[in-house]
C-alpha cells in the first residue's frame, strides 16, 4: 500500500467530460490494498468508465460485502454514498437500495469468497430478481484478508503458495448467472482495461442485472506458478469470443467492421454496444449455447472473456413489481398515507 496522499489540485490539462468534470472527480480515497493488486485496476476501470459516461459522481450507490474486494468502493467515486455490508449479504442490501431509489446507478463490488461461498444464496437470488445494477466480482480464487485459503472459485488442482493443490470443484459464477437468467453476463481480466472499461459502461447502462466476473489476481497469495488465477496464467489462457465497443449516443462509429461481423445492441439511454464476433459460431444472445461454449472452453483450459451474453430487451425488478417511476424514497405523506377518511371504510370492513 502507499501512504503518499494524492494531490488535491487537478492537472489543468486533464480532459473534462460532458458535465465538466475530469477523471479525478470520480476517484476515492487512496487504496490500502497491496501494490499490484488486481482490484485496484478494477477500481481504476470503474473510475474511467463512470467519468466517460458523464454521470454525476454522487448519483451512484456503491455496495459491497466483506473482504479485500469489498473495501474497494472506498477507492472510487468519493462523492457517492457507499455501504460496506456484512459478509456475503451485499445482494440483499443492494436489492433494498435499488427498490428504494431506482434513479441511482447501483454498483455492487464483491469477491469470490463473498459471492461464491457465504453469499452464494443471495447472489443466486439477486440474479433471479433482475435488480437493475452492475455487479462486479473481483475474482482472485483466494481469501486474501485471512491469508490465502482457497475460495470456491479456485480451480481444482490449482495450487496454493505452498504447493498444496485444491481438491474441490470450482464454482463458475458466470455459468451460474447465465443459468439463472442474468440479462448481461461478462468475464474480464483486471489486466485488460481496454476490454473492462466498455463492459463496465455497458453494464451500468443495461437495464436489469449486469454481471461482470473479473479475474483479479491476488499478488500476495495467489499469483505464483501453479495458480490458475495469476497474472501470467490469465494472460496466457484468456480467449475472447466477442469484443464489445461502447458507443455513447452522440459518438460516431469510427471503426471499420467487415459486414456481418458486427452487431449493434441499443442500451436504454440511446448508447450502443458494438459487438464484434471473434469466434464464428458464438451467439451472445443465445443463453443455452453461450453456456455450452463457456463450459467447453473451460474443459479445454481456456478462460473465456468478453461479453458472453446480453439480452437486448431486458426487464428489471421494478418492472416486474410494477412500481411507480418516482423513487419510493421520495414519496411523502400525501402519496403514501391513505388518511383519516379512508379508515372509515377500512373499519367498516371489519364489522
Amino acid at each position: 500500500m502507499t501512504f503518499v496522499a494524492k494531490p488535491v489540485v487537478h492537472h489543468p490539462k486533464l480532459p473534462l467530460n460532458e458535465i465538466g468534470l475530469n477523471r479525478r472527480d470520480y476517484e476515492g480515497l487512496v487504496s490500502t490494498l497491496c501494490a499490484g493488486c488486481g482490484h485496484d485496476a478494477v477500481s481504476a476501470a470503474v473510475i474511467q468508465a463512470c467519468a466517460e459516461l458523464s454521470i454525476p459522481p454522487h448519483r451512484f450507490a456503491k455496495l459491497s460485502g466483506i473482504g479485500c474486494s469489498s473495501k474497494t468502493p472506498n477507492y472510487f467515486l468519493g462523492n457517492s454514498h457507499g455501504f460496506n455490508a456484512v459478509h456475503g449479504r451485499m445482494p440483499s442490501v443492494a436489492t433494498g437500495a435499488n427498490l428504494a431509489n431506482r434513479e441511482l446507478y447501483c454498483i455492487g463490488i464483491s469477491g469470490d469468497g463473498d459471492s461464491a461461498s457465504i453469499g452464494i444464496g443471495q447472489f443466486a437470488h439477486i440474479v433471479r430478481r433482475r435488480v437493475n445494477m452492475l455487479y462486479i466480482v473481483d475474482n482472485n480464487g483466494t481469501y486474501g484478508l485471512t491469508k490465502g485459503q482457497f475460495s470456491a472459485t479456485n480451480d481444482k488442482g490449482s495450487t496454493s503458495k505452498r504447493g498444496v493443490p485444491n481438491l474441490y470443484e470450482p464454482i463458475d459464477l458466470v455459468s451460474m448467472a447465465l443459468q439463472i437468467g442474468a440479462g448481461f453476463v461478462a468475464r474480464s481480466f483486471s489486466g485488460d482495461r481496454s476490454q473492462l472499461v466498455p463492459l463496465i459502461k455497458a453494464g451500468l447502462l443495461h437495464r436489469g442485472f449486469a454481471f461482470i466476473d473479473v479475474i483479479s489476481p491476488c499478488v500476495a497469495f495467489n499469483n505464483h506458478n501453479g495458480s490458475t488465477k495469476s497474472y501470467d496464467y490469465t494472460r496466457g489462457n484468456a480467449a475472447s469470443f466477442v469484443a464489445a465497443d461502447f458507443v455513447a449516443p452522440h459518438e460516431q462509429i469510427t471503426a471499420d467492421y467487415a459486414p456481418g461481423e458486427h452487431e449493434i445492441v441499443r442500451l436504454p439511454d440511446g448508447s450502443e454496444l458494438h459487438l464484434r464476433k471473434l469466434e464464428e459460431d458464438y451467439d451472445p444472445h443465445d443463453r443455452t449455447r453461450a453456456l455450452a461454449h463457456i463450459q467447453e472452453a473451460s474443459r479445454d483450459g481456456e478462460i473465456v472473456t468478453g461479453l458472453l451474453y446480453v439480452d437486448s430487451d431486458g426487464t428489471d425488478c421494478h418492472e416486474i413489481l410494477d412500481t411507480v417511476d418516482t423513487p419510493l424514497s421520495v414519496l411523502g405523506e400525501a402519496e403514501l398515507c391513505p388518511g383519516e377518511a379512508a379508515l372509515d371504510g377500512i373499519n367498516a370492513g371489519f364489522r
Partner: protein
Amino acid sequence: MTTYNDFVIRFANVNGSGSASANGMFAKALFRMGVPISTHNIFPSNIEGLPTWFEVRASAAGYHGRREGVDLMVAMNAETYEEDVAAVVPGGYLLYDNSAGLDRRLFRRDVNQIGVPISKLIVSAYTDPRQRKLFKNIVYVGALSALLNIDFDVITGMVSTQYRGKDELIAPNIRALEMGRDYAREYLECPLPIQARRTDLVGDRIMIDGNEAGALGAIYAGATICAWYPITPSTSMAEAFENHAARLRVDKNTGQRKFAVIQAEDELAAIGIVIGAAWNGARAFTATSGPGLSLMSEFLGLAYFAEIPAVLFDIQRVGPSTGLPTRTQQGDLLAAAYASHGDTRHPLLFPSTPGESFEFAAAAFDLADRLQTPIIVLSDLELGMNENLSDPLTWDDRRRYDRGKVLSREDLDEVEEFGRYLDVDGDGIGYRTLPGTHPTKGAFFTRGTSRDAFARYTESADAYTENMDRLLVKWRTAATLMPAPEISGRRHRVGIAYYGTTAVPMAEALDNLVDDGVRLDTMRIRGFPFSDEVARFIDAHDFVFLVEQNRDGQMKTLLVNEAGVEPTKIVSVLSYGGLSITADTIRERVLKHYDENNLARLTEVSGAAGADGRRTSRQ
C-alpha cells in the same frame, strides 16, 4: 336458569376440512348481534388431516382472554374425542354427528349429548364429495343457530356477502344452514339454557387480528418496502400488507404501485433488503418469528452499529428452535433486546391489542427514523393471528411522519462540516444523509467496522469507545421516546405488571381477585428501554407480580438488568405451554403466593381501604 352472551364454544375439527370459514362465520354472527367475543385458533403445523380447534368466547362483561372449561363442544374429530369430552364443564353440552350412533368415547354422564345426523343429512342433499365435506361444517353452524338462538338472518346475510360474485355458492350454503337449523328445531330442545341475545355491548368496535392491523399501521406510516420470508405466525402480516397496499397504494392514473413486496430467499435477505432500502431513504419493514429473528441477528447488529433505521415485527411463537410453531409465547424478549454479538441492544414495543398493533406499527417507523436504529415490535401468535375485538383504528390527518435527522441538499449547502456520527445536539443522534443528495457534500461510507465521527475507518481505541458511549447516550434518548407504561391504582401495597398479550386476561383476573380480597395496582409495560416510571412503580410496592408467557422470566431479567430492579421484588407468574394464559391461571398463582407466604389479602394503604370496588370490565 338461562344465561345470555356468556359461554365458551370449542370446535374440534380436522384441519384442511374447511371448518375455519364456517367457524369464523359463527363467531362473526355473534359479533354482529352486538355480543363481545374473542376467538382463539389452536391449529397444527400441517396442511391437512391433523386436529385443530377453534374457540369462541362470548362475554357480556367484555373479557377477551381464554377461559378453560368449555360450555359447548362441537366434536367433529374422532381422533380427539377423549380430550374434547374431558374439556367440557359438568352440565355442559356436546354436539356430535350421530349418523353412526353415539361413539362410546363421547359418553360422559355429566354432559348433555346433542346428536345431529350431519353426515346423513349431507349425503342425502349433496352428491359432490367436496361439497359434502365443506357443508358438514355449515350444517352444524345451522344447528347451533337454533340451539343458541342466533339470528338466522345475520348468518344468511354473511353468506351472501362472503360469496358475492360467486352467487352459485350462496343457495347451497343457505340450504346447508337451513338443514341444520330445521333438524335442531324439530328434534332437539331449542334453545339451550346458554344463549345469545342481541345487545349493543360491541359499540363501534371492529373484529380484526393484530397482523392485519399492524400491516395497516405500516401502510399508514408510509412503509413502501416489505421484505419477508414465510414463517408462521407472521406470514399473514406481509400478505395483509400486500393486499391492502394493492388497494390503497396504487397510482390512480397509471395503476403502478407505490410499494414493493419481496418474498426473500430467507430471513437474512429479508432484513438485508429492509436495511438497504432504509439506508437509501425508504421506510421498510420485515415480519418474522423467533427462528427468523435468530437468522437476522447479524444484520441487526450492523444496523445498530451503522445506525440505520429498520422495523421488524416479531410475531412470537413457542421456542426454542422450531418449538411449537403454531402456539403462542413471549419467548423472544432477550433474543430481540440483545440480538447480535458485541454490546448490541434494540428498542422493543409490546402491543397488547389489535388497535395497538396498528398504533405501534406506525410509531415504530417514526422511532426508527428518529433513533436511526432497528425497532422491534414484539407481537405474538395470540395477538397476530386471532381476530378479536378492537377499538376502531384511528388516524389524525394532522400527524406528520417524523423522518428524523436527515439533511437535505439545501441543509448541506449550509453545513460547514458534516460528520455522520457527530453528536451535534447532545442526544446521541447524528445527522444522516441519503445517497444521491448533494454533488460534493455529505457522502460517507456506511460500515459495520469501527469508524470515527466522520465515518472514517479507524482502529483507534478512543474513537471506538467514544462511539460506543455515544450509542449509550442515544439509548437514554430512546428511553424518553418509547410509549409510557399504563399505570393504574397507586394505592395498594402490591402491584402486578404485564405486557403484550398477558394484558388480555388481566381485567378478568383483577376483577376476580377483588372478590378474593386481593387488590393490586397495575402496570402495563409498553416499551423497552424502560422509562423511569417503570422502576418507580416497582419501587413503590412491596412486591410486584410479573405475568409472562415464557419459562425464564425474560422481562424480569430485562427489568433487573436494565432498570436496576431488585430481583426479590418481582414475583413471576409464568405460563408457557403455548396456549394463551387465562385469568384463572393468573388468579390461582397470585392467591397461591399470598397463601404460601401468609400474606394478608386486603392490602390497601390505610385511608384508601374500600374506596375502590370498581370493576374494570374493559381495559
